[in-house]
């Protein structure tokens, strides 16, 4: 297996959605190709770091403000619709 073929399968390999035959070919490649091992390992870490990062968490006060604004706008839409029907 060439490195380019390994990279082509990397996403499915990391997602664990790959058939057993391809998986063992990929792991055989990983066993001797240090570069692909590092790329695979650091790509996996990239995903894990972003997933755990709490980047763009919604602060509680903002969440309260947004929920209230949404509720007001939904209520106003409902009132308009029911006035239209009346």
């Amino acid at each position, binding site marked *: 297996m060439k*490195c380019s073929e390994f990279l082509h399968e990397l996403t499915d390999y990391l997602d664990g959605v790959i058939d057993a035959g391809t998986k063992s070919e990929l792991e055989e490649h990983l066993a001797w190709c240090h570069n692909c091992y590092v790329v695979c390992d650091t790509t996996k870490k990239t995903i894990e770091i*972003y997933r755990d990062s709490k980047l*763009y968490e919604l602060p509680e006060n903002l969440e309260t403000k947004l929920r209230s604004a949404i509720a007001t706008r939904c209520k106003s839409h409902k009132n308009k619709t029911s006035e239209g029907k009346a």
Partner: protein
Amino acid sequence: MGAIQPKVSEPVSDELALVDAAKAGDDAAFEELVRRYDRNVFRIAQHITQNREDAEDVVQDAFVKAYTNLKQFQGQSKFYTWLVRIAVNEALMKLRRRRPERTVSLDEDVKTEEDSVPREVADWSPNPEQQYTQAELRDILDRTIHGLPATFRTVFVLRDVEGLSTEETAEALSLSIPAVKSRLLRARLQLRERLNKFFQRRDRTNGSQKTVSGDGNQ
């Protein structure tokens, strides 16, 4: 090396019941759906627009749009996937308004062959994120993902940050499954490449960094 662990999402078994109740006029049921998903929608919107005020608007607009169009939701997909689709469209509209000089479309396939080929292969420290404070780390991650084209960023966020499946991501973005997979691979590899300079192992003066040729079959 094992696969990444799939993100465990909250049980959605009662989601349909909430949607049905909301359709029947139960506002408390809709408010529960807002409580359940507003954080996710905010994160997605912030990732796409890269702007806090726009993200706040997107959260409001997406939920109000979902509320006013609830009857059109047929329950063939998860409510959350339907909501994400609305939110992504709202976020892209904001982005287009803010950057009219740049066309932003999820269909755009940023074709650069080299972006799929790792150029720099460097081992990372065992727990690279621990070299930085939380604030520094967030800044690094923010700036790094900011540099990706919107189409890659969006696929990465839905799949890897929010934990949607490939099929759900394809549905939410109106993309084919191969298109989602191809963008996801490139997004992951580009982020990895960009994070190298922050996370690479620093305990060796040489030999820790290698350049890979296009088809580095060795």
